[in-house]
Structure formats: C-alpha cells, structure tokens
C-alpha cells in the first residue's frame, strides 16, 4: 500500500513539475513567426474571427461562408498582399492566443483595442467605434439601466469587452452572482440564451445588439453603456512590417472613402 501511494505521489509530482517548467518556457518556444514575406511566400493570409457577430462576421445561409464588414476587410488585405485568404472561425476568447502563437496571421473580429490586450498583441489603427448595449426581450419592462441588472442572469460572449464590463461592474461589486453570468465562446450562443429565456439580459457590443434586434423578433435594446471602444485588427507584436502594411491600407481606405463605403454596405 505504502509503495503504491509513494509511486502515485511521485507521478503527480513529475506531472506538475513538467507542466510548470513547460509553462515558464511557453513564452519563448513554439511561436510561429508571421510577416509580410512569410504570408506572401505562403500565398495565403490566415485570418481568425468569431462568427455570430453581425454585421462584422456572420454566416450567410446560402453560401455557408462567413460574411460581413470584417470578412470584406480580410479579403481586402489579402488582395493588397496578392494572396488568397483563409478564414478560421473560433471562440472569441481563443483569438488573441492564436495571434500570439502565430496560429493565425491576424484576428479581425470586431475586437476592441484595450490596454490589457495591448500587452500581449498589437493592434492596427482603429476602423470602427462602438459601445456596449443591454438587450432584453421586448416584453420586459423591469430592466432599463445597468442598475436594474442587479440579481439578474446575464449572457455574454466570453472574453469580449462586454464580458469584462459585466465582470468589473456587476460581479466584482457583488450585484450579480458569478454563476449567473452565462459565458459563451460565440456571441450567437449568448444571443440564443436570451431568446430561450434562460437569462434576463445580454450585454454585447452596440452595433451587434442593433443587428440582433433588427434580425430577431421580440428583442429590444434598453440601454447603451457608453464605453467608447475602438475596433482594431489584432496582430502579432513582432510583425512590425505587417502592422505597418495594414495601417497604410486602412489610412488609404479612409482617405479614399472606401472604408465609409464598406461600413455603409453593412449598416
């Protein structure tokens, strides 16, 4: 018996030690590089996004492909680089890690530029401004402001600024219990949660909230939380040239009115 126990602890010890050592090296090893040259020689730009986020990235039922403002932007960058574009659809929260490790060349996913994210990755110039919005069922009359969310169940898209807003303003202050925040990898799953009446409200980026209300009957936006967020294209910090390339393109698109035309197309 004692022999078995000792062996068990030894194995546990080894596993823990290996994983801790590996994790301390994680910052230095295994990261794949990305650059304009690498993308060009590969002939393909790999862009990560997280669907269910209209009108930035959402599935088109007919083509079964993602479409939207961000997707157009991705293809525009691909065109400028002279390469094809591969779109990878993943959990929103997985995008930054994917950019950091070089799994994808960039993430275009209605992603807000934040200080915290800036520590891990780099962002292009902003291309869109947004706030957060509280969405509820159209027949609800008891939720009209953030204060009304106390004690309620809330759905969010995990890792988004809406999720962080709820954590900081409602959970950390004790107004909402941690387990009453239902977090989902895709924004559309958080929306489904509200539609199915499993939560009282959904906190999500304002442009997306407007689109949901327009596309899904029985929903309304009751409050806009002015957060002044700016969306940027997320890239690896080391890809200096690529960041410059994207910034130049955004500048050019803004100067020529192409960016506004793109926004008008989707709103």
């Amino acid at each position: 018996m004692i022999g078995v126990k000792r062996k068990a602890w030894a194995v546990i010890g080894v596993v823990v030690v290996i994983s801790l050592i590996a994790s301390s090296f994680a910052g230095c090893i295994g990261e794949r590089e990305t650059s304009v040259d690498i993308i060009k020689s590969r002939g393909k730009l790999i862009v990560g996004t997280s669907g269910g986020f209209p009108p930035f990235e959402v599935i088109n039922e007919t083509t079964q492909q993602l479409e939207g403002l961000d997707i157009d932007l991705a293809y525009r960058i691909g065109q400028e680089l002279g390469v094809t574009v591969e779109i990878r659809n993943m959990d929103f929260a997985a995008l930054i890690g994917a950019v950091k490790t070089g799994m994808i060349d960039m993430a275009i996913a209605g992603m807000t530029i934040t200080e915290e994210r800036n520590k891990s990755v780099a962002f292009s110039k902003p291309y869109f401004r947004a706030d957060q919005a509280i969405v509820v069922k159209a027949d609800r009359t008891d939720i009209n402001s953030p204060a009304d969310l106390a004690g309620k169940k809330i759905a969010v898209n995990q890792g988004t600024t809406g999720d962080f807003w709820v954590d900081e303003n409602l959970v950390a202050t004790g107004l909402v219990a941690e387990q009453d925040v239902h977090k989902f990898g895709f924004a559309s799953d958080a929306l489904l949660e509200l539609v199915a009446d499993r939560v009282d409200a959904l906190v999500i980026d304002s442009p997306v909230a407007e689109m949901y209300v327009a596309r899904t009957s029985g929903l309304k936006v009751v409050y806009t939380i002015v957060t002044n967020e700016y969306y940027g294209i997320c890239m690896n910090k080391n890809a200096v040239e690529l960041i410059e390339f994207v910034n130049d393109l955004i500048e050019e698109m803004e100067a020529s009115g192409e960016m506004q035309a793109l926004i008008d197309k989707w709103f």
Partner: protein
Amino acid sequence: MGLEIIANNLGFFLKGAILTLEISLAAIALGFALGVPMGLARISRVLPVRALATGYVEALRGTPLLVQIFIVYFGLPSIGIYLDPLVSGILAVGLNSAAYQAEILRGGIQSVPKGQMEAARSMGMTYGQSMRRVVLPQAMRLIIPPMTNEFIILIKDSSLVSAISVWELTLVAKELNAKYFDPFTIFLFVAAVYFIMTFATSKILRVVEKKTAIPGFGAGD
C-alpha cells in the same frame, strides 16, 4: 507571466476542479442508478424490456455527448423544460454514462460462468435470488476494471459542459485564457489537474478491486 497566472488564480482553478468533481460524481451516481437496472434489462427474458434497454443503450452510445448536452440544454426549452446549466450538464453526462455502465454490467454478468446460475437454481433459489446472491456479487467484482475506465472517461468528458456555461475546470481555463492570453500555460496546467483526478480515481478503484477480490477468482491478483 506563466507561473504567475497559475499562482494568482489557484483559488479559481480549485473552484473549477471541485465543480468538475461534483459533476463527475453526480453523473457517475446517476449513471449507476440507471445503468444497473438497464444492464439487467439488457439480459431480461422479456422482449419489450430488453428491446427498450437495447434501444436506449444504442441511441445514447451512438450519438455524441456534446450533441446530447445541447439537446438537454438548448433543445428541451422548446418543449417547455428549462434546466439550469449545471443540472443540464449532470443530466446529460449521467444519462450518457448510464448507457455505458449498463453495457459494462451486462458484460460482467455474462462473464460469470453459466454453471453458477444453474447451481444456484438447482439448490432451489429463484432466478432473482440466484442473481442477487450468486451472480451479481461476482459480476460486481468483474466490472471494477471497465468501470474504472468509464469513470476516467466521464471525468474527462465532463469538460464538454463548459460549452453550456457551467463553471467547471475547463470553463475556468477558457476564462483565464480570455483574460491572460496564455493558452499553453493555462491548458497545460489544467491538463495536469485533470490527470491528478483521473489518476487518483484509477488508484482508488484499484484498491477497491484488490480489497474485494475473492482469492483464486476473477481478474484479481
């Protein structure tokens, strides 16, 4: 970064790990409570009973657990049944496990030599008595190794309920990854935590297996 993320969030990881254990234990219990009668029904001489149990086992074993979780959580509201995430998760994982546990038990019972039942019957015991007093005690010992397997698989599969926002270990990891963007460290650590849980399960059941072994019988050594 790296180690700091782990060190600063040990409490959060622990909370997730405890919920993972709770979900696993509850689902194993539910699976056992349903799996035992189902396993007996699988070898019943009454055709409708056998057919029903076979249908259940084949259906639950033949479809992905993740899809079953979605049916329970997202699907049932369509027919007016609203369960909260934790209850849905335990229910789906437990119902799924019942199918596997039923099959394990059936296998165990059928591994007990036929002569045992015949001898019991010839001593005047009824079918039920023979089953309860002679066959099942032997079968229960035989099923410990495959059950260990099932419990380990269940603990790992409980990570799927993170998809319906249950705050178990995997969702905690996803949450921290969303905050710190360090997937390698976080998921590697979580893998180690899962390993500790499954390894302990395997060791505990090995002890049970040894303690309950009948000298000279079955797989015990």
